């Protein structure tokens, strides 16, 4: 109980209170005033598009992901582990990096169009189309299909298929009657997860879809920041919350069904034999390299190429390799997009990420310890602690705006004026400090951190501790010699996770970041929406930086994961 208190206090103030404010604002029909029925029409329209694009993206992802899952589950081929890693990386990349990558490859100033223009061919229009949105979603989520369905496929007992074949079934029949039904739970679970991610898509839509497309997430942002219509934004946020919670419940149902495999058998992988198999493996191999690697390569390459003049620069320039976009990040020019050296954004992001790690570990550790001891209270509080998973980052950002932009005292009952005066002191100082962003990031990372630590704690058999105690170790010694070594890995991977989340988080930051404290993603967004080669180059340079930092973090997580499995 005592150990859960800090986490509950934190979530109470920084998750449930903002949520309550959104509820109050969104459910108050008087607020809509002059817009009236138009709001509902708009809501329906946005909801329709959100569902449509999520369905289409999920379908396309499965269409591409299933053959690749088959590839990884059945064949050995050169560089297989590397290729598997390549397909998994996009999932962890910040949306802003993915958007910048596709922009560098296929955008109006991207490599492909530069090439087409050089050949006097008409440029292709990619940014601002539905194709761009779907492509980015497929890029993001194919890794999920490969991991989830691939694992199930590899564990499938090959004798079932062999038996059907020997009884005269056509391969197509075998696939439809045996393989597909057995794979169905894993496919559905993957599809539900992908649908959930696409449903709450934000950065991709905002950056690649352009002004014509709006999902619920984007519309919340537009209503709040463009139209200054907070009640409508709040109502959209509520709709979003209900949808994501429903989808999460659905997903957790599938995932429990997934836990009962037919009979795990280690399938013997083989190199492709027939010409058909060879062709398939070759095509899939090249596809993975092209589709997953090109956007990630286009980005750093574009960040060191000078190809177009800066905004307002009238002289023609010779294409050349350059480091000036990186150098420019350190210069504070009056009249540039920021009034601080842009590199400060990197410093801010690193500070926020470190703070997020610090706060979420401080709060998460005691909570995980309390939860790992079975008890009624722990059982009851578990879902409460996990609830922030259901809220989107944009909703959180909106909640902070409507909560902390007014002195708290204004909506506390008058009986609590004393508390009100105190809390307005808190919010007032919060608002002027750049702390809101790491607090929002902690809210997002905390459930994961608690889960991860809890899982690690559960792996420590109690009799180790008892044995140590019997042998005369003090409680502190028990913790130092038994718990600490086992937990340290979980702590590193939790930290790396919280760090990565905070580093790439764009939704909450796009609503909360004060212009003098930009984060890497908000700075990239700002640069990308500005004209001229210099701004574009700096966007590319920063996105490359963010990609490298994230890559480092992912590497840490993966390394810890692998060593624990060994």
């Amino acid at each position, binding site marked *: 109980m*005592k150990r859960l*208190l*800090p986490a509950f*206090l934190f979530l109470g103030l920084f998750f449930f209170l903002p949520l309550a404010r959104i509820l109050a604002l969104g459910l108050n029909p008087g607020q809509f005033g*002059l*817009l009236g029925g*138009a709001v509902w029409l*708009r809501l329906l*329209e946005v909801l329709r598009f959100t569902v449509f694009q999520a369905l289409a993206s999920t379908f396309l992802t499965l269409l591409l992901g299933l053959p690749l899952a088959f590839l990884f589950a059945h064949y050995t081929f050169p560089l297989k582990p590397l290729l598997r890693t390549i397909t998994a990386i996009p999932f962890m990349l910040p949306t802003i990096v993915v958007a910048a990558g596709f922009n560098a490859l296929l955008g*109006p100033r991207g490599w492909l169009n530069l090439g087409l223009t050089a050949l006097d061919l008409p440029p292709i229009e990619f940014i601002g189309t539905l194709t761009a949105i779907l492509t980015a979603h497929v890029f993001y989520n194919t890794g999920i299909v490969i991991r989830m369905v691939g694992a199930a496929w590899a564990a499938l007992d090959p004798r079932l298929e062999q038996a059907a074949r020997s009884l005269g079934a056509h391969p197509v029949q075998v696939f439809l009657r045996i393989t597909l039904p057995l794979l169905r739970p894993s496919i559905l679970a993957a599809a539900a997860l992908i649908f959930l991610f696409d449903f709450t898509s934000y950065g991709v839509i905002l950056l690649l879809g352009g*002004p*014509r497309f709006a999902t619920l997430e984007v519309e919340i942002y*537009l209503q*709040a*920041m*463009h*139209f*200054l*219509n907070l009640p409508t934004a709040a109502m959209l946020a509520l709709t979003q919350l209900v949808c994501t919670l429903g989808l999460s419940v659905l997903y957790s149902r599938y995932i429990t069904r997934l836990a009962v495999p037919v009979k795990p058998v280690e399938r013997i992988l083989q190199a492709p034999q027939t010409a058909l198999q060879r062709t398939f493996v070759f095509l899939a191999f090249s596809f993975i390299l092209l589709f997953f690697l090109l956007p990630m390569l286009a980005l750093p390459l574009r960040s060191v190429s000078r190809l*177009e*003049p*800066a*905004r*307002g*620069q*009238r*002289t*023609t320039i010779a294409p050349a390799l350059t480091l000036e976009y990186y150098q420019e990040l350190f210069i504070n020019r*009056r*009249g540039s*997009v*920021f*009034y601080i050296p842009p590199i400060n954004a990197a410093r801010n992001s690193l500070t926020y990420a470190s703070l997020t790690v610090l706060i979420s570990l401080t709060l998460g550790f005691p909570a995980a310890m309390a939860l790992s001891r079975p008890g009624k209270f722990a059982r009851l509080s578990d879902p409460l602690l996990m609830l922030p998973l259901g809220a989107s980052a944009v909703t959180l950002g909106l909640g902070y*705006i409507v909560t902390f*932009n*007014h*002195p708290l005292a204004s909506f506390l009952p008058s009986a609590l004026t004393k508390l009100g005066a*105190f809390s307005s*002191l*808190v919010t*007032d*100082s*919060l*608002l*002027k*400090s750049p702390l809101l962003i790491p607090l929002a990031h902690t809210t997002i990372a905390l459930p994961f951190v608690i889960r991860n630590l809890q899982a690690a704690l559960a792996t420590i058999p109690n009799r180790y501790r008892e044995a140590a105690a019997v042998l005369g170790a003090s409680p502190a010694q028990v913790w130092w010699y038994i718990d600490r070594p086992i937990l340290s890995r979980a702590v590193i991977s939790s930290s790396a996770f919280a760090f990565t989340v905070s580093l790439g988080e764009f939704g909450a930051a796009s609503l909360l970041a*004060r*212009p*003098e404290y930009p984060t890497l993603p908000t700075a990239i967004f700002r640069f990308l*929406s*500005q*004209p*001229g080669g210099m701004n574009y180059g700096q966007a590319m340079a920063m996105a490359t930086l963010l990609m490298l930092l994230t890559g480092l973090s992912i590497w840490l997580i993966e390394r810890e994961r692998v060593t624990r499995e060994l």
Partner: protein
Amino acid sequence: MKQILSFLLALSFLLTACASPTPSMTPAAPTEQPPTPRTLTIMSHDSFAASQEVIAQFEQQNNVKIAFLEAGDTGSALNKAILSKDAPLADLFFGIDNTFLSRALEADIFEPYDSPLLAQIPAEFKLDPQNRALPVDYGDVCINYDKTWFAEKGLSVPTSLDDLLKPEYKGLLVVENPATSSPGLAFLLATIAKYGDPGYLEYWKALRENGVVVVDGWETAYYTNFSASSGKGPQPMVVSYASSPAAEVIFASQPLTEAPTASIFDGCFRQIEFVGILKGTPNRELAEKFVDFMLSLPFQEDVPLQMFVYPVLPTAKLPDEFIKYAQTAPNPASLPAEQIAANREKWIEAWTQVVLR
């Protein structure tokens, strides 16, 4: 439990102590210069510009460092200022125009300031009787076209808003999103002044069918999409300012005797830009000085070549190139301020529905 609460309490007091500046008990004597310059922050839109020398002059005279916070196009910058009004991002806000003015006044983000310099400024520019927003410059939002492009294609230049619906001009115009951009909103208001409400929606529907391109801000429209700018974009017509052609002459890489762009005078809208002191600034006295500075001759004469708009001060001398190449629309469209205030959000919402969805 008790420990945690008292810890949090102590922490929060510590935070507030750090965050709030301690009020100085005795005002410094006017002759005494503080050793380190204070910083005065001016929040503005992305297109704000002023000469280094002119700003440096103010900085030296007042021992202050001026910081410019460019926070997106006018609409976005203003929204940010409103959303953060309890913890202001800056001391002053420059660039709010007559199309967005009432939003700022309703949100009550400005402190009134009766600058002595207002006396020299014509009454037609002073739209806020309480002087919370003080006029600085004006210009006409008009469609600019790329002369060379039209000459090369042998296409005649459209002369009216109606012409833009003709099939030969399909996909040739780029406009700004009125939700975020003040020239975008000004152009929308021009169409409302011309076609009425709801007639303007019919016009925009037809314009959409004729392939109008929408971007978020003027910077992108002009420097990325417009074919006559350095971006060499795909559209030869852009919603910009009647004074923009002068900029093209002044900044041309080779000397020009004729502007490469010109304006179409149908569908122009007169825009007046204001400055205001943001509520709750700790630097009220300095902020007043800066407002006075913006209304004084050196800054007013700097405005034309920096932001390519006209100074509101009638005695300010215009540069030669400006007189020669910049234009004002003969009779720009206008709408009563009350009508804009009452309908702006509804119009923008309806426009979004028709043009973007």
